[in-house]
């Protein structure tokens, strides 16, 4: 670090292929957790909506799981499941549940009863009503859950670097750069993982807009006032 420039661009150019591989690994590890977590959470949310009494229990369990440090879980699981993708995925999936479930439940709760009555009056069957009325109206909050879970998961993937060189995605560069006192590597790993999270977030915002073309984007003081009075 003595007299060297902050970023050694020659190192970056020389490792473009390896960096691309790490980005791919990062997205792969994150995508599995975001998708699997979503499926599990959707099931848990569906159960919680039908059986209201179970909802506080689901929430408490999910919050408790979220409380256990990722660092401890990754390290602890190695002794049980070995150095496999499962070891990296179990904590990542576990952490998404507490972010998904409340949003999905709130999404379906936000569907006004009048609208459900109207759908029934129009002769929709239960299945049709769910698919064509409830689900579309729940989309904004479900997408909010996806944004939270994807951003948080992409960040947490970096921690799996402590499992070893074949994990961690861009987190590998953060840890390796720290150990070697090599700033360029830390910056590449840190900034790119933040960039991935921001891109994923924007992607889901866009998806939300596409899925709910009828909704007017609610940003600014008017949205806040509406929520207070409603």
């Amino acid at each position, binding site marked *: *670090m003595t007299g060297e420039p*902050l970023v050694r661009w020659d190192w970056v150019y020389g490792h473009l292929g390896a960096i691309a591989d790490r980005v791919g690994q990062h997205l792969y590890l994150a995508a599995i957790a975001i998708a699997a977590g979503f499926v599990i959470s959707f099931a848990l949310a569906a159960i919680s909506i039908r059986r209201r009494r179970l909802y506080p229990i689901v929430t408490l369990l999910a*919050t*408790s799981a979220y*409380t*256990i*440090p*990722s*660092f*401890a*879980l990754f*390290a*602890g699981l*190695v*002794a*049980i499941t070995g150095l496999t993708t499962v070891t990296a995925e179990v904590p990542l999936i576990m952490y998404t549940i507490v972010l998904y479930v409340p949003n999905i439940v709130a999404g379906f709760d936000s569907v006004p009863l009048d609208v459900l009555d109207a759908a029934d009056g129009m002769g929709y069957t239960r299945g049709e009503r769910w698919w064509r009325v409830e689900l579309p109206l729940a989309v904004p909050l479900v997408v909010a859950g996806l*944004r*939270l879970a994807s*951003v*948080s998961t*992409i*960040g*947490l993937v*970096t*921690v799996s*670097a*402590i499992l070893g060189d074949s994990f961690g995605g861009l*987190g590998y560069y*953060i*840890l390796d*750069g*720290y150990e070697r006192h090599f*700033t360029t590597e*830390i*910056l590449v*790993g*840190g*900034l790119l*993982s*933040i960039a991935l*999270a*921001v891109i994923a*977030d924007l992607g889901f915002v866009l998806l939300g807009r596409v899925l709910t073309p009828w909704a007017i984007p609610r*940003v*600014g*003081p008017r*949205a*806040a006032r509406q*929520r*207070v*009075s409603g």
Partner: protein
Amino acid sequence: MDLVTATAQWLADPTHWQGPNGIPARLFEHVALSGGSVLLATLVALPLGLWIGHTGRFSWWVVSSANAWRALPSFAVIGLLVPFTTVIDPNLGFTLYPTVIAMIVLAGPPILVNTYQGIAGVDRDLVEAARAMGMKERQILTGVEIPVALPVLATGMRLAAVQVVATATLGATFGFGGLGRFIVLGDANQDNGELFGGVVLVAALALTTFGLFLLIERRLVSAGLSRGATG
């Protein structure tokens, strides 16, 4: 089974409970770092959240940046800080400073967002009634808005504290002590007893923090609100 026995044996060994590398010393480090970071974050985020919530100024900024803060993974933040903090102090800048700053960055947003949402979510009719009764803005804030919003504010503090206690474990990877040290050492020495002992201690501390804050939250709810009054 072996894992459980090894962990129990490591935890039961009295030599692990004394000295500067013992469990009490590491626990103290962990709690001191977490407590200090949450306190510093509160000093900044709480007054800011109260002000934004009360006046409504810059609220768009809080709402839109709430999610963006999550994009800053602590692991990356600590790593990114190291090159800069080592310039200030080569030793502490490599261990303590980046961890503390990363924990403040982690704790601030939930406190700020919950404080803002709690205050902004107070029934406007209630605030108008207080204003009509001749209460000054400061009195409205301390006498009406804060008491009504207190459970939401406390939730923000809990989220921040639990996240910091859990994430401070990472500091051990970056040379800071705390309970994460046992996990790092257990991993390096292939000592599963020590590794899992560390995991158990960290999880226990995080869950204890969670439970303690939950208890405090229950106590903080104003009597008028807990009687099932609906707004």
